[in-house]
């Protein structure tokens, strides 16, 4: 009798577990629709997203990220600053000149002898070439221009360089990625390398591939960059986030983007 009760309860537990698994977004690695979002063992966040969220991203019209792409397109030819120049005056047609740029950032910049993320490179152009003011972190114009530039590389595989002059930054990024932090005492790698595909409460953990940034996040109700997401992750593990554009946050973005090398740029992606 006791045995059968045990059997029933085991069956219930199994049912509960499979029931939970059924609630996950469907993902079939052999589905040809998923092929653009997989590279070897790497899976884009798209494959972890709900079908409704994927549908929003699939149609450029329903993808709210394109509001930022269009804003960036306008800013591209708008002259600002003392030099009276627009991005267009030096770089010409963004569809040609910016193609592939988004796929190689964060990148070592010999002029400042440091690794720069795309936002910092845009602001460098603004202050040095256009003699204009820097755009503030997470401001609409900076996010719009970053999205517009990165979007020109959509569909191209990420190819971030981790060796050569970028090596010390890459090593720093790796160290921070593996370092436990905050009240929860976890590292990036615990969620995104060791336990991806499993649940953190109701959240399905992804591999943490940043190939879709800047991305429209439904939770944010707006578009945000990888910098914002890394800061958000830090808050979630109850750690003090690294400042915007700080060497730590840039190194982390470099390492995280290197992990996604081979996955195609999706900017602007849509996520939960």
């Amino acid at each position, binding site marked *: 009798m006791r045995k059968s009760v045990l059997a029933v309860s085991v069956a219930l537990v199994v049912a509960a577990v499979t029931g939970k698994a059924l609630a996950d977004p469907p993902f079939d690695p052999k589905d040809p629709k998923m092929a653009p979002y997989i590279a070897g063992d790497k899976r884009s966040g798209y494959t972890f997203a709900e079908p409704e969220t994927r549908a929003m991203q699939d149609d450029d*019209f*329903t993808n*709210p990220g*394109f*509001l930022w792409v*269009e*804003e960036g397109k306008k800013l591209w030819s708008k002259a600002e600053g003392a030099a009276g120049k627009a991005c267009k005056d030096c770089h010409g047609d963004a569809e040609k000149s910016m193609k592939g740029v988004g796929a190689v950032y964060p990148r070592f910049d010999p002029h400042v002898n440091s690794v720069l993320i795309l936002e910092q490179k845009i602001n460098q152009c603004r202050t040095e070439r256009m003699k204009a003011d820097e755009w503030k972190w997470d401001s609409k114009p900076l996010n719009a221009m970053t999205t517009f530039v990165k979007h020109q590389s959509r569909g191209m595989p990420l190819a971030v360089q981790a060796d050569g002059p970028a090596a010390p930054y890459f090593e720093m990024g790796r160290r921070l990625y593996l370092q436990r932090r905050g009240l929860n005492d976890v590292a990036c790698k615990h969620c995104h390398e060791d336990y991806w595909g499993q649940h953190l409460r109701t959240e399905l953990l992804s591999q943490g591939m940043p190939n879709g940034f800047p991305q429209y996040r*439904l939770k944010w*109700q*707006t578009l945000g960059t990888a910098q914002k997401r890394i800061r958000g992750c830090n808050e979630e593990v109850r750690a003090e986030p690294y400042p915007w554009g700080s060497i730590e946050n840039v190194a982390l973005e470099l390492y995280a983007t290197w992990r996604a090398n081979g996955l195609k740029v999706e900017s602007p992606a849509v996520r939960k």
Partner: protein
Amino acid sequence: MPTPRVKIPAQAAKGEVFEVKTTIDHDMESGQRKDSAGKPIPRKIINKFVCTYNGKEVFKSDWAAAISANPYLSFFLTATESGSIELKWHDDDGQVYSASHAITVA
């Protein structure tokens, strides 16, 4: 100034039912949030959307505080005659954002 994005077919057969897709970048500030100093952020949402087809109102919708930011709206119209489709978003502060689209009905 929010910029609307609109997708309407340029041509349609008479009697054909076509889809109007719209989206607009707007924060839709609900009035429920507080800023970093603890002061409430005043409500600022688009409270009304109106679509007119050659001056005649064909679609109207009242929006409330729970509508998401950057609202997406799609609806269907019947092609009756060539002309213009006017879309207007009415903001709480009195501003009106508009878009216009020409359609040829054969």
